[in-house]
């Protein structure tokens, strides 16, 4: 499935902050979506919380730096970090080039069996991205 030029795998769940969540039993893998990385630009550096850290939905699980902007990574689910992708420390642009593969960020043991509540499925996320793109185009016209 796609929204414009951005790929949206159908088996994943998505947050409004543009993170994807792949469920596997009581664990989840998560990362930034292809659309999300495109809004960030070329990623120069990523700092992720280490294994063993507790993350909470809506709160920061690290920071990200692109050309001239620094921001927080916002957790789409709550849980305990089982593993963070240390490869991204040396190759942060994997998030740009392969957001659903080598660009994965955390593997998390979920706190909540209803972890996907509040997340979007692929169809809903596709619509949401299309809406964001429309807004961006309107912004461009205004500015």
């Amino acid at each position, binding site marked *: 499935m796609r929204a414009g030029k951005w790929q949206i795998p159908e088996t994943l769940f998505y947050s409004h902050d543009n993170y994807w969540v792949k469920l596997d039993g009581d664990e989840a893998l998560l990362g930034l979506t292809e659309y999300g990385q495109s809004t960030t630009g070329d990623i120069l550096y990523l*700092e992720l919380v280490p294994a063993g850290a507790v993350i909470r939905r809506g709160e920061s699980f690290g920071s990200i*730096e692109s*050309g001239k902007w*620094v921001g927080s990574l916002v957790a789409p689910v709550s849980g305990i970090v089982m593993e963070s992708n240390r490869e991204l420390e040396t190759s942060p642009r994997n998030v740009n080039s392969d957001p659903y593969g080598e660009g994965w960020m955390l593997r998390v043991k979920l706190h909540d069996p209803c972890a996907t509540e509040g997340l979007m499925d692929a169809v809903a996320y596709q619509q949401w991205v299309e809406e964001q793109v429309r807004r961006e185009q309107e912004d461009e016209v205004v*500015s």
Partner: protein
Amino acid sequence: MHLYNLGAVSWWESQCLYHALAILGREGLIICYPTTAYVCLGLHDDLEQEIDLDYCRERGLPLIRRETGGGVVYLDCRQLFFQLVLRRDNPLLPLRRERFYPRFLQPAILVYRSLGLPARLRPPADLIADGRKCSGNAAGDIGPGTAYVGNLLLDFDFDTMSRVLRVPSPGFRRSLRKAMRDNMTTLADWMPVGSVTHGELEEALVAGFAELLGRLTPRRPDEELMRTAGKVRERLTSSDWLNMPGRKTPERRVKIAEGVYLAERRLGRRGSMTVLLKNGKVEEATWRGGPGDCSEAAPARSMPSK
């Protein structure tokens, strides 16, 4: 929009007030300059790799790590800061944060142009005049706010900036100073020093930002803001925060301006090469043969960088 046109402030207030506004979720434009010099690291800079701590100690230069991007900067009263804090839900803020720079930097461009500098934006966030950087800028999401920060350069202390950074050799430091001098420009290059005051620049900036933001209401920092700024100072200057591990690079590499880097390339056990990279090409290469470190610069050759 609240305007904090503060003039001279202490070195830490020149960083912590905008952080405090953002943390409090309050919007505002701050214009200020520090009364004394200091060194400011970007959020992801690695202290040990980047800074000559002995030199900073000897000179009594305080250190602070900001929550916006970019690299290490030496800051003093010859730079006028403009810092805009917006709430993240402000419709002025595009989803792609870089897209706000052209608007945020327009007032600075107009001020420079009114003084004879042909300033223009080099995306994403540098201002250049005559091909040389004349303003460094950065942004970051801080708490519920987003801060865009920039400066106008009345003058710049190239000597101290080149001393503050940890570098692999005295020769690299000489090359660094020269590369900054060649690729940066300030008002002092364009008019006699002292012919424009901080006050005149502040007034012109305020007028430019009023065009962008609408009515600006003058404010002074209140108790809540100062209290929060004090807490921010404690955090941003704490040993733990300053020593937080950051971006490590396998080779020493200093960004001078957008697309301009000075890098040290190791060649075997004893030698190294200092290369000035400009837009992906080597503009100058200097062989450092050994401890004498006295070789001459090789002629500029246009060859692709790795």
